[in-house]
């Protein structure tokens, strides 16, 4: 069993590495992580406290290569430190949805019956009825804005997808011979779920995780842009765009760089997710 799933990943890795687009995506993501980790070494400005009132809204120059914002803060520094928030924005909601949604999906799919069909499935249906941004706005209304609340809201928005995918796969798998065999030799339900079923659901979930990360980054930027995500002084790429909105006419470049950064990183996640899907799904031919 273990060997089988390992060889699946080895084969998938091989296929993934042959896909130039996927590798490029992975490189972009590694680049994001690199910038996030080594931010202090990439710029000597502080993204929040270094405010140069003599160079407010300055055009790109040798001192400030991407210019400055309305408080004279270096745009490049804010972008570089923004990589940290962006990394968090990619990881936190998806981690929440994964660690909450997958166990629910496993339980629901494996157990079946009343709880599955009447409670969990209905709850998922109901949750899915809320447009994801509306859900985030509702939470912002009652809990207040802020980066972590935005993360939670986006994570809740991802829950239905993670529960559904896991549940569907479990239902498809649970009557396969090897699961029945495991059950017949007396494996506990928990063991079957974690050792025999989860590894088989993982390939699908991995793809979902990568693509959800792309969505999470855009959602975080969107929430910060309308002002219910990261606070204005936090160097989130979305907050940067919010600032830029006021100066679109006079200083259009202020809007250009954060948007390009978001697009590039999201492109990375999308390309990697696509590559993973092709690598892990035997049905898709190259």
């Amino acid at each position, binding site marked *: 069993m273990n060997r089988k799933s390992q060889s699946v990943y080895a084969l998938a890795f091989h296929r993934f590495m042959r896909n130039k687009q996927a590798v490029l995506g992975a490189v972009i993501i590694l680049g994001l992580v690199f910038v996030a980790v080594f931010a202090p070494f990439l710029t000597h400005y502080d993204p929040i406290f270094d405010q140069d009132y003599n160079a407010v809204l300055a055009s790109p120059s040798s001192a400030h290569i991407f210019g400055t914002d309305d408080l004279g803060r270096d745009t490049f520094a804010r972008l570089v430190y923004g990589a940290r928030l962006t990394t968090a924005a990619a990881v936190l909601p998806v981690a929440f949805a994964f660690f909450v949604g997958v166990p629910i999906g496993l339980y629901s799919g494996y157990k079946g019956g009343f709880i599955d069909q009447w409670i969990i499935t209905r709850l998922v249906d109901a949750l899915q*009825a809320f447009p994801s*941004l509306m859900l985030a706005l509702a939470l912002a*209304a009652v809990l207040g804005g802020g980066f972590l609340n935005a993360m939670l809201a986006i994570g809740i928005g991802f829950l239905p997808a993670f529960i559904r995918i896991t549940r569907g796969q479990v239902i498809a798998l649970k009557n396969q011979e090897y699961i029945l065999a495991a059950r017949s030799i007396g494996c506990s339900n928990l063991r079957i779920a974690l050792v025999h079923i989860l590894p088989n659901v993982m390939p699908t979930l991995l793809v979902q995780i990568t693509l959800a990360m792309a969505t999470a980054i855009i959602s975080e930027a969107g929430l910060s842009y309308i002002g219910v995500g990261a606070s204005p002084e936090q160097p989130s790429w979305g907050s940067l765009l919010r600032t830029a909105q006021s100066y*679109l006419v006079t200083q259009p470049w202020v809007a250009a760089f954060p948007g390009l950064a978001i697009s590039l990183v999201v492109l990375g996640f999308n390309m990697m997710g696509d590559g993973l899907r092709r690598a892990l799904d035997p049905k898709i031919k190259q």
Partner: protein
Amino acid sequence: MRVIIKRIASAIPVLALVSIMVFLMLQLLPGDPATVILGEEATPEAVEAMREHLGLNKPLIVQYFDWITKVLQGNLGESLVDGTSVNQLIMERLPATIELALGSFLVALLIALPCGILSAARPNTFADHLCSFISMIGMSIPHFWLGMMCIIVFAVELGVLPASGYVPFFDDPAENLKSIILPVVATGFRESAILMRMIRSSMLEVLQSDYIRTAKAKGLSEMTVLFGHALKNAMIPVITTSGIMLAGLLGGLVITESIFNIPGYGKLVIDSVFNRDFITVQSAILVSAVFVVFINIAVDLLYAFVDPRIRLGKEGNS
């Protein structure tokens, strides 16, 4: 007909759960809602009056039934800001959002249909790769940033289109169109990316099926095979995506309306969030969720319309 009734009936538990979730939303408010609404410096009498007004002194379950009875009678309550009826607020804001949603969807279809069909008909050619590239870009660029870039190019630099604002259609159709072009294109481009991939893969699958070979064996031209035989089959899964998309647009337009300063439904929600107008937020979210449920019903019925297997009641019991 039976299919329709069955489908609508199955939506009732979902709607009930949605209403409970929306109702419980206010319970999430830290502390006493009345105090939160009125602010810390409110007098105890005012707080007590507010509690009475909101019915907070009754047990939770009674509160819920009071509220849901009112909602079912079509009364969504009054805004906490100025006491206007929330019904009226929503009705005022809805037309702009519906226009934007349909417009964006139309733009998405106009881009996605030809590109998706072309990609599927000529897989692995330059045209196919170009379309995948465009769709990859479309999925990666945040639509609000694209909107800002459009403002810079078309409103600031070229000055051909307004940067923001909204003119209702019945006031001035020409100005109305001008005011929605940028928001609709910026939002629709992203949606088109998702739709294009869906159409391509669905079409590719259909084109490999036996009945397409039959159609070719009849001597039909490629155009007839593509549009006469493949498209209708390929659209069946695409309809679901379109439904989810249209529903998602209600949320996605929140940001679009904010960039272009359009007094739509999403702007109403944002403004209410900032004004701490919980009643309006609550009602608006309820209405949007109900909308989504109804769009899903419409999608399923459209399915039945396209696919005779479901319409005539076979294999449609899932």
